[in-house]
């Protein structure tokens, strides 16, 4: 496909490659500011308690300490939806909740100061189970939220924001079903997205209402446009450093920003707050807990006739963006299942543990991972091949769905049947699939099984993007767009798009830093929107700049712009390519040509990814090994092959596939402590455990927009967990429904424990 393009689809080095491999890329902990102070957080040892007394006199007296804050003297800023999370509160709601803040000349002094803060707590009963928390007599985390229910009617995506799926007639649907599967399934192991770099923020006030924020973020603008109203509308300038991984979690860092900004305001100096790994594990951002109780009806031919049930979403101690994840999860469920009758209700619930927040998969992975074991049960009863079932039931062009805004959207993307079938061929599915609860092979104590999952998202065109492209007379182009680099290579891919429009060598195209002062609005790198949404704005800006340039030339040459073209920083007459003038002659040296582009949201083009997995279960040790993975997708047009491939391999990271195998946040439900709060006890995949991994990437042009490409990166993690459960169940010949499949669970299923 890429033959027609000069850069699109070709492997080109990342623009920041040299900086990264030489250690010069600047991450948040590398940023220096004159007079900077170090901010630290005192954290609660109790899951639920009231602060009866707090005394900071000794801490304040320690030399080198410049600010000590408690609930008594912090600014009245609040985050959460609706606003319920204060900078510091007189109540703590999880082990690790913030109690006091200190800023000092060194990190050691700040820590020492916090050790001198005397706190008297009155402990309160705590609740950890999503359904127990809804009982009328359960301990209540917030006075304003009876039964610990977070409100769902909060207009997070407008007045009709989706919080469930209700349509058709489920009673009729179940009557029409040949098979009805019913049950309760959970995906509550609370995977941690765990980017290597912990969250961090530097805050510096230039005046009482003027704040500059440096942070590690995947979406630079959030610290401005989302935080403004939460902080009483100071003028916030936000700058993103290189971001050492995010996977949703560092879209923004509301609390670290509150801490740094509050301390900086009191101390009158810049303050940096960078979480240590314990805080990153235990006080930042976990996946949502997800439990589904309900039923699904299907016909013999795989037609889905009805889905009904309750989705219990455990948001932990804070609810920030969880309603948004509920909305997207409900939307994505409909992409996965073409079904006319739905009655899916949601309960969003507070519990006394580390909060959940934004994580790659964004509600969809959580709902799917709890719902698909039930769907598997129905497919098993109907003896349906899951590949055929998913192929039949994934949204097709012309099908409709309620998306996150509550509006009915009609799919004008593509039919992904070929992608799933090509993936199945590459995986050799037909050979390996032996029917439900049948192993592919048995070799002594080792049993092999296969499974498949799919995922899709209509957010590739979500939210707004704006960009300027500025052409300079020296034959260079600069893209002004507020896009961070958190690993996807998006800044480089956007340069390729502009270079393609301008037919300019890639090294002559650069981009402004992700800084809200220098750039127009961009929503950020979420929902795989970088390619379609941000790309469209950049392309439009480049086209606008090019048109302005050719207009200048046309006026000078008394030709029409249709007769002119530009290449390599020169304008030439199409009929006479040898007759070319450098941009400097067209513009003069005291002029630039700037184009503007804007993208408006479009939720009609879903993406898709299928993940085929083969596992080996050792029936003696109970260990489950992932042996083989095939990912299949159709992206329309590859922009950068190596970056795309990397994003899809990412299925194995960021609390994805491995949440079915070994990743979990383990809580002591008696004391509320998280037990594996470090990188030794929280298990992660190493080089030695890499499965064979093959990507099948189709490029069927999507006619809706230029370069005909959709992003797919975010969803790579989502189909994996349920696919692994399916594969291990088939290997053992026993239905396995609990995440993760620890040796203990396998041996229990085998009756050996």
């Amino acid at each position, binding site marked *: 496909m890429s033959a027609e393009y000069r850069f699109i689809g070709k492997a080109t080095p990342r623009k920041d490659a040299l900086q*990264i491999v030489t250690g010069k890329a600047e991450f948040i902990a590398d940023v220096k500011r004159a007079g900077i102070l170090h901010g630290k957080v005192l954290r609660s040892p109790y899951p639920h308690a009231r602060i009866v007394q707090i005394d900071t006199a000794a801490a304040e007296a320690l030399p080198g300490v410049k600010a000590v804050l408690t609930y008594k003297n912090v600014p009245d800023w609040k985050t959460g939806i609706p606003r319920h999370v204060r900078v510091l509160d007189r109540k703590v709601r999880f082990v690790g909740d913030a109690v006091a803040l200190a800023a000092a000349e060194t990190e050691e002094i700040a820590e020492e100061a916090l050790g001198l803060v005397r706190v008297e707590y009155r402990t309160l009963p705590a609740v950890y189970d999503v359904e127990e928390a809804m009982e009328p007599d359960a301990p209540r985390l917030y006075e304003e939220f009876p039964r610990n229910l977070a409100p769902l009617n909060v207009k997070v995506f407008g007045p009709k924001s989706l919080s469930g799926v209700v349509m058709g007639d489920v009673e009729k649907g179940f009557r029409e079903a040949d098979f009805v599967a019913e049950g309760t399934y959970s995906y509550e192991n609370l995977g941690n997205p765990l980017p290597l770099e912990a969250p961090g923020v530097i805050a510096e006030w230039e005046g009482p209402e003027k704040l500059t924020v440096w942070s590690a973020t995947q979406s630079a603008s959030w610290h401005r446009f989302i935080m403004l109203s939460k902080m009483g509308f100071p003028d916030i300038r936000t700058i993103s450093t290189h971001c050492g991984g995010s996977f949703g979690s560092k879209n923004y860092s509301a609390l670290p920003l509150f801490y740094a900004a509050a301390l900086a305001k009191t101390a009158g100096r810049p303050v940096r707050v960078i979480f240590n790994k314990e805080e990153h594990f235990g006080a930042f951002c976990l996946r949502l807990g997800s439990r589904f109780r309900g039923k699904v009806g299907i016909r013999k031919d795989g037609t889905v006739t009805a889905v009904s049930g309750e989705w219990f979403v455990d948001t932990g101690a804070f609810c920030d963006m969880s309603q948004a994840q509920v909305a997207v999860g409900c939307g994505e469920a409909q992409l996965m299942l073409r079904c006319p009758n739905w009655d899916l209700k949601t309960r969003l619930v507070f519990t006394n543990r580390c909060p959940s927040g934004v994580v790659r998969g964004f509600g969809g992975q959580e709902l799917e991972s709890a719902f698909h074991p039930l769907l598997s049960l129905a497919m098993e009863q109907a003896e349906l091949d899951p590949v055929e079932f998913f192929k039949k039931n994934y949204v097709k062009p012309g099908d409709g769905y309620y998306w996150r805004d509550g509006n009915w959207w009609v799919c004008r993307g593509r039919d992904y049947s070929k992608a799933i079938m090509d993936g199945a061929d590459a995986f050799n599915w037909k050979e390996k699939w032996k029917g439900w609860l049948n192993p592919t092979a048995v070799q002594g104590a080792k049993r092999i099984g296969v499974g498949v999952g799919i995922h899709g998202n209509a957010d590739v065109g979500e939210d707004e993007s704006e960009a300027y492209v500025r052409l300079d007379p020296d034959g260079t182009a600069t893209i002004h767009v507020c896009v961070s680099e958190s690993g996807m290579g998006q800044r480089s891919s956007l340069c390729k798009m502009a270079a393609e429009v301008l037919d300019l060598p890639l090294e002559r195209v650069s981009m402004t830093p992700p800084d809200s002062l220098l750039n127009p609005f961009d929503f950020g790198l979420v929902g795989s929107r970088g390619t379609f949404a941000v790309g469209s704005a950049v392309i439009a800006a480049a086209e606008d700049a090019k048109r302005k340039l050719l207009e200048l030339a046309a006026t000078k040459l008394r030709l029409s712009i249709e007769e002119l073209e530009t290449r390599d920083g020169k304008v030439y007459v199409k009929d006479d390519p040898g007759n070319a003038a450098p941009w400097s002659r067209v513009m003069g040296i005291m002029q630039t040509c700037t184009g503007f582009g804007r993208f408006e949201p479009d939720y009609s083009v879903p993406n898709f990814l299928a993940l085929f997995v083969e596992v080996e279960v050792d029936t003696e040790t109970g260990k489950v090994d992932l042996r083989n993975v095939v990912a299949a997708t159709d992206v329309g047009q590859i922009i950068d092959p190596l970056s795309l491939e990397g994003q899809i391999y*990412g299925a194995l990271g960021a609390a994805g596939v491995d949440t079915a195998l070994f990743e979990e946040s383990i809580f002591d439900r008696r004391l509320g402590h998280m037990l594996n709060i470090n990188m030794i006890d929280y298990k992660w995949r190493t080089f030695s455990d890499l499965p064979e991994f093959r990507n099948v990437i189709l490029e069927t042009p999507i006619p809706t927009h230029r370069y005909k490409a959709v992003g797919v990166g975010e969803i790579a993690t989502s189909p994996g967990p349920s696919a692994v459960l399916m594969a291990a169940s088939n290997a053992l010949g026993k239905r396995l429904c609990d995440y993760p499949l620890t040796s203990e669970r396998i041996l229990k299923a085998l009756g050996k424990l």
Partner: protein
Amino acid sequence: MNCGKEKETISLTVNGEKYDLEVGPRPYQVAPWHTLSQTLRDTLGLTGTKVGCDHGACGACTVLMEGKAVLSCMTLTVECDGKSVTTIEGLGDKSRGTIDPLQQAFIDHTAFQCGFCTPGMIMGARALLDSNPSPNESEVKHALSGHFCRCISHYHVLRAVMETAKEGD
């Protein structure tokens, strides 16, 4: 530490440059509890070395000491007296302005995503290739198994390291 006596110092050679560092609690000094990663980053300004977990589990802070890969977050600077350390900033040939072939291979294969683990990963791979110039793939996997990469650039990293190993043959 030294109560008015002659100042205690340690000598450290980093990327070929010799540093005599005073031991003590002041900001410009090396405190007895300072880790090598702190000294490299905060005292010497060599921020190419990254700190991921700060408890010896992720490999991000890997540097070479006397040619061997060590975790600089688990090494106390005061224990490094007289040692020679190479960090990511010290790779390549400064006089010719060239980068290490391994760094070039990482560029060619886009063997990173967010890039935070990359300096440690490259130092770990460098240590391997220095001691075993032609490793097979399983030896590379074994050598890098202590390096955490959450983006999953492992497959690209293997290609980059294996290509460099081949060229070294």
